[in-house]
């Protein structure tokens, strides 16, 4: 391919699609390369779509995007290993009033749709092509990409790396380091199919409405991680993820953990009789602000999961991906309009735009959370268990007086965690999340 493009975007996930769409809409010549058979065939997410990030890119997306259900109810479950659950529910009919704020989506379908918008906007999208490296000139400026195809070098004024959590392209070009086991969560997921009416009856929801369940506690067997159960139109997405550093230590396979969640008595009746049609796995970059790599350089920028833009506390990633893709595109569009080159100094604007957006503000807010949770794993283990035991004690009416029961609860609390430990946890928890 002798042609030279204004921009090459590597990858067709939410970050790459957001960038390619915005660039093509603004009239820049864009080539987007995707290694999957079609966009979405290599991508995995729960998946929740946050409308605001997509609205800023495709304002009328609700009219044609493949959306599953709009979320009206969020449950937060604290589970033990296989017996009890406690938690809280927030349900709000206001969430049913359009425009809806969050939807469940099925990524293979959603990504294909998003990619159609990118093509309509004028970008050239080539699938089944793996980018193997970056081209650089003698000054180290990125000038294009290498692909596995013969004569596969393609040149551009800028390259946007949206190649996902593993970002082999970025790593091999020396633009970012390898992700550490302490900063990566491995999530496994199954797609379980049930008739639409069954989904709605089991979750107590009406037509088009959806429920999100986020799960923490001993269900991860002491590892730092969470589970989830999301309602789609005629399927449920169930999954569980834990930090790789913990999984390596605990010697439990990811599919055993998922089976434990599926067999938990709070989950089992919800998924009973469903047909499993796909089993997937994916890494989530959860290192947060402190693990972010350099985000731009001479002729390149990095966006989405490849940059590590995930807010693990709020289970957000694809919205940060789309926002960062859009901001990278806007940076290039403004520079081109001003007739300025895509040099490292000029691309620093991208960092500035990120700093001013929710992407960096949220990542900075929770910058110490990963360290806190690694240092205090009992926060996600001991406390949910204690809470479940306290609920059991108080809800079992057996002739013991309530003060005695209260005494038992405090005795267990003190046995598991000293008073000083408790106060320390509370203080450090507040410091990390404030």
């Amino acid at each position, binding site marked *: 391919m002798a042609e030279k493009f204004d921009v090459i975007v590597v990858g067709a996930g939410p970050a790459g699609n957001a960038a390619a769409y915005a660039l093509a809409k603004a009239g820049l010549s864009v080539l987007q390369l995707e290694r999957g058979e079609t966009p979405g065939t290599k991508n995995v997410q729960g998946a929740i779509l946050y409308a605001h990030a997509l609205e800023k890119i495709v304002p009328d997306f609700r009219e044609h995007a493949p959306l599953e259900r709009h979320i009206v109810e969020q449950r937060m479950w604290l589970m033990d290993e296989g017996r009890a659950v406690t938690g809280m529910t927030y349900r709000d009919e206001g969430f049913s009033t359009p425009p809806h704020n969050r939807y469940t989506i*099925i990524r293979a379908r959603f990504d294909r749709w998003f990619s159609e918008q990118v093509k309509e906007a004028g970008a050239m999208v080539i699938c089944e092509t793996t980018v193997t490296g970056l081209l650089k000139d003698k000054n180290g400026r990125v000038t294009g990409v290498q692909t*596995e195809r013969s004569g596969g070098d393609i040149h551009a004024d800028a390259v946007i790396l949206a190649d996902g959590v593993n970002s082999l392209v970025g790593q091999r070009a020396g633009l970012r380091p390898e992700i550490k086991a302490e900063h*990566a969560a491995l999530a*496994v997921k199954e797609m379980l199919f049930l008739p639409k009416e069954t989904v709605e009856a089991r979750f107590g929801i009406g037509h088009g409405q959806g429920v999100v369940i986020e799960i923490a506690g001993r269900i991860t067997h002491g590892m730092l991680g969470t589970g989830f159960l999301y309602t789609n139109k005629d*399927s449920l997405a169930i999954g569980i993820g834990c930090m790789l550093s913990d999984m390596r230590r605990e010697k439990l396979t990811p599919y055993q953990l998922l089976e434990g969640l599926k067999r938990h008595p709070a989950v089992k009746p919800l998924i009973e009789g469903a047909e499993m049609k796909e*089993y997937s796995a994916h890494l989530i970059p959860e290192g947060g602000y402190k693990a972010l790599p350099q985000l731009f350089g001479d002729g390149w920028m990095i966006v989405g999961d490849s940059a590590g833009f995930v807010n693990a506390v709020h289970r957000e990633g694809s919205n940060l991906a789309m926002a960062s893709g859009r901001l990278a595109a806007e940076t290039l569009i403004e520079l081109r309009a001003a007739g300025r080159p895509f040099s490292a100094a000029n691309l620093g604007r991208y960092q500035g735009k990120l700093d001013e957006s929710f992407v960096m503000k949220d990542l900075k807010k929770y910058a110490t959370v990963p360290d806190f949770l690694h240092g205090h794993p009992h926060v996600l283990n001991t406390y949910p268990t204690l809470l479940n035991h306290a609920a059991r004690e108080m809800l079992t009416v057996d002739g013991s007086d309530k003060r005695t029961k209260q005494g038992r609860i405090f005795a267990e609390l003190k046995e598991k965690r000293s008073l000083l430990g408790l106060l320390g946890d509370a203080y450090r928890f507040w410091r990390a999340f404030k």
Partner: protein
Amino acid sequence: MNAPVELPAINVEEKLFQNRYRVDAGRPHIRVIDPAVCGRCDPKPCVVCCPAGCWRIEEDGAIDLVVDGCLECGTCRIVCEPKNVDWNYPRGGFGILFKFG
């Protein structure tokens, strides 16, 4: 009353059977760099962590890697402390093809 819950043994191949793959026969995208390093490795975290069960320990203790069911997550590359895994994306269009993702 609160005995630890034993997690069941799971045949992950039954799960993988539901997935769609286009296997690049004869061109595995993941390779062990030096089998001797795997032989000395203890506790072989790739075997436990791989969500597709691609890494197994043979009777003689050697590592057996079959990438046909790989979900392309990257876990084995990251958990391998001696960095003995040569991990690449499959050629374009090959490997796992998620129907839902």
